[in-house]
C-alpha cells in the first residue's frame, strides 16, 4: 500500500501536562469548550463584549470626574433620603442594591429547579426575580424623578460639575435598560416554563428551534452579569 500521507497523519496523542495540555484542550476536535452548548457559549462571549461597553462607560465617567476643575457633587448627600426624620445617606441605593442582589439569589434557585424540571417552582422563582428586577427599575425611576425635581439635568446640576448629571443618567440609564430587558425576557421565559414548552421541546416562535431548560441558566448568566455590573456602578459612582 502506497504511503500517501506525510504531513499530519495522526490524531493528537494523549493530552500533555501543563500549558501544552491547555493548548491541546483548547484546540481539540469539534468543540473548544466541551459540554458547553452553543447558546451558553454565545451568552458568555456576548457578556465579555458587554463588559467592554460598561468598562468604557465607567472609565469615561472616571476620566470626567478626575479631570473636572469644578467640584464634584457629594453622592452621599445627593442620594440621601430623609425617612421618619432621619437623614440617611445612600439609603435608597442601599435598598436597590439589596433588592438586585437578592434577585440574583432567586435566579440561581430558578436555575436549580429548572434542571430538576420542576416547572412550577422554576416559573415562580423567575417571576419573583422579574418582580425584584422591576422593583429595582421602579426605585431607579423614583430616584431619577427626585433628582430631576431637584434640578439635576444631563447638562447641569445645582451642585457642581455638569458631568455628574451626564454620567449619572447615562450609566444608570444604560444599566436600567439592561435590567428592563432582563425583566421582559424573564417573564417570557417564565411563561414558557409554566406552559411546559421545554418538556415537550416546543419550537420557538422566531427561531423555530427546540426549547430546553438550559435557557433558564443562560438567562441566569445574563441576570447575574447585570447584577455584577451594578456592584461596580455602586462602588465607582455612589461610594467613591
Amino acid at each position, binding site marked *: 500500500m502506497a504511503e500517501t500521507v506525510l504531513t499530519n497523519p495522526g490524531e493528537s496523542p494523549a493530552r500533555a501536562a501543563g500549558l501544552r495540555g491547555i493548548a491541546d484542550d483548547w484546540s481539540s476536535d*469539534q468543540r473548544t469548550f466541551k459540554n458547553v452548548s452553543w447558546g451558553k457559549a454565545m451568552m458568555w462571549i456576548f457578556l465579555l*463584549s458587554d463588559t467592554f461597553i460598561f468598562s468604557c462607560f465607567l472609565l469615561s465617567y472616571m476620566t470626567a470626574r478626575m479631570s473636572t476643575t469644578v467640584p464634584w457633587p457629594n453622592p452621599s448627600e445627593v442620594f440621601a433620603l430623609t425617612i421618619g426624620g432621619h437623614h440617611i445617606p445612600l439609603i435608597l441605593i442601599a435598598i436597590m442594591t439589596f433588592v438586585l442582589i437578592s434577585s440574583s439569589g432567586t435566579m440561581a434557585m430558578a436555575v436549580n429547579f429548572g434542571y430538576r424540571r420542576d416547572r412550577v417552582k422554576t416559573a415562580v422563582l423567575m417571576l419573583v426575580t422579574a418582580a425584584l428586577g422591576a422593583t429595582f427599575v421602579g426605585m431607579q425611576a423614583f430616584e431619577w424623578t427626585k433628582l430631576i425635581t431637584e434640578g439635576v439635568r444631563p447638562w447641569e446640576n445645582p451642585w457642581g460639575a455638569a458631568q455628574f448629571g*451626564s454620567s449619572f443618567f447615562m450609566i444608570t440609564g444604560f444599566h436600567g435598560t439592561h435590567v428592563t430587558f432582563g425583566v421582559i425576557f424573564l417573564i417570557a421565559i417564565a411563561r414558557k416554563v409554566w406552559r411546559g414548552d421545554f418538556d415537550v421541546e416546543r419550537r420557538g416562535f422566531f427561531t423555530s428551534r427546540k426549547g430546553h431548560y438550559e435557557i433558564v441558566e443562560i438567562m441566569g448568566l445574563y441576570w447575574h452579569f447585570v447584577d455584577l455590573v451594578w456592584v461596580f456602578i455602586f462602588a465607582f459612582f455612589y461610594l467613591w
Partner: protein
Amino acid sequence: MVDVPYDARADAPPAEVPEVELYHPRSWWTQYVFSQDAKVIAIQYSLTASAIGLVALVLSWLMRLQLGFPGTFSFIDASQYLQFITMHGMIMVIYLLTALFLGGFGNYLIPLMVGARDMVFPYVNMLSYWIYLLAVLVLASTFFVPGGPTGAGWTLYPPQAVLSGTPGQDWGIVLMLVSLILFIIGFTMGGLNYVVTVLQARTRGMTLMRMPLTVWGIFTATVMALLAFPALFVASVMMLFDRLLGTSFFMPALVEMGQQMKYGGGSPILFQHLFWFFGHPEVYIVALPAFGIVSDLISTHARKNIFGYRMMVWAIVGIGALSFVVWAHHMYVSGMHPKFGFFFATTTLIIAIPTAIKVYNWVLTLWRGDIHLTVPMLFALGFIITFVNGGLTGLFLGNVVVDVPLSDTMFVVAHFHMVMGVAPIMVVLGAIYHWYPKVTGRMLDDWMGKFHFWVTFLGAYLIFFPMHYIGLLGVPRRYHDIGEAAFIPSSTHTLNAFITVMALIVGFAQMVFLFNLVWSLFRGRPSGGNPWRATTLEWQTPETPPGHGNWGKELPVVYRWAYDYSVPGAAQDFIPQNQPRTTPAVQGAAP
C-alpha cells in the same frame, strides 16, 4: 504483512456536536430575502457592502477631481469636499471592508470551511444583516437631509464634529452616530455567530490547528471586533448626548461666533482614546482576514503547503492581541507624556515582528512553489508587495519624532491607503476571483480579470507613490485647496493632476470588474466543484453552489490539515482535507 483494508472513518473521533435542526425555507421570501442560510446572508452582505462601496468610490473621484484640478469643478465647494472625505473614509473602513470581510466572507466561508451546516444561530444571523442594511440606509440618507452628511473627518473628532462650523452639523453628525450604533448592534449579532461557530461547531476531525488560515483570520478579527467596537459604541452614544442633550462629555468650554457656548469641562482627548481604542484594532480587523485569505490563496495557487502554519496562527493571534495596546500612536500630536509616547512607539514597532513573520512565510511558501499566475494569485502577490510597502512607511509613522512632522500630511494618507486600503482590497478582489466559482458555479473571465488586476495594481502604485512624496513636501491632508504656498513647488500641482487621472482610470477598471461579475454569471465557463484543485472543505461540497445545509446527508470528516499540496507519492498534487488516511494514525505525530 497482511494488507488489511484500513477504515479511517471508523478511527475518526465520534461526533460530539449533535445534528442541528435547520430552518427550511417555505417560500420565496424566506429562501432569498429573509433567509437564514449563511450563504444567502453572505451574498446579501456582500452586495450591500459593494453598493455603498461604489458610493465611496465615486466620492473619491470627486475629491481627486477637486485636488487635481482645483477651481475647475465649481460644484465641489469646501464643505462638500469635507463631507466627501468623511463619508469616503467611514464607508470604506466600516461599511465596506469590515462588513465585506466578516459579514460577507465570514458568513460564506466559516460554515463551509469548518464543515458545519450553517451558523449556529441562523435567525440572529439574519437579524444581523437587516440591522446592517438599516445602518447603511441611515448612513446613505445623510446625503439627502438638510445640511448634508457630516464633514468632521472619518475620525469625527470633537469638538469640531458638533460645532456649527462643520458641515452636516444639523442632521449629518446625528445620523452618522445613529448609523454607527446600529452597525455595532448588527455586527455583534453576526460576530457572536462567527465566534461560536468556529469554537463549538466544527466537524469531526477539524481541530483548531487544522483550520484553514482564512478561518483563523476571520475568527481572530471577529473576536477583536467584539472587544473593540464597544469603545466606538460608547463614544458614539456620548457624542450623541453632547450633540442632542447638551452634555459636555467631550466638549470643553468654547466661544463660537463671539458667543460663550453652554458646553464646559469635557475632554476631547477622551474621545480620541475611545475612538482609537476601537480604531487601531479596526485596522487589524480589516487586515487579519486579508492575511488569512491571502495565505490560502498563495498556498493553493503555488501548489505548496503554507510555510510555518503554526507560526502563522500565532502571528495572527499575536497581532490581534498587540493591536489593543498601540492605539495612542494615532495621538502623538494630541499631546501626551513622553514616556507614553515611548511606550506606544515601542508596542507599535513590536507588531512589526509577527507581521514580518507572516510576510517571510508567504514568500517562503512561494519559494520553489509551482506558481500558477492565475488572477487570484496575481492579486495575492499584489497584496504582499503593497502591504510590505505600506508597512515600511508605518515604521516612519510609528516613531514619535518622525511622526510629528509627517502627521496630517498626505504621507499619512498614502501610508494608510497602501496598508489598509489597497492591500486588503487586493485580497477582497483576489478572494472574489477565487471563490466566485463556488458561489455561482461559473468562472470569472480570465482576460478581464488580468486586465482588472494590472490596471488596479499599477494604478494604485501610480496614485499612492507620488502621494508619499507630496506628503514629504509637507502638503497637508483634508485641505480643499492647497493654494500657492512657498514650500509647495509648482510640480506638486502637476503630480496632483496625474494622481487624479490615475484614480479615474483605476476606478473605471473596477467597472470592468463589475461587468465581469455580471457577465460571467450567465456566460462564464462552468467551473465544476473544485476548479482550483484546492484541499479545503468548501471545495468538497456535493453540490456547487452548495445547497441548503451545505453537505447533503452526512457531514464531512476531516483527516488532515488544509495544506496537503504536492505531497510526494500522492496520486494528485493535492489531498482534500476529508480524504481518509490509508494507514492508521502514528502516535505522537503532529496534529
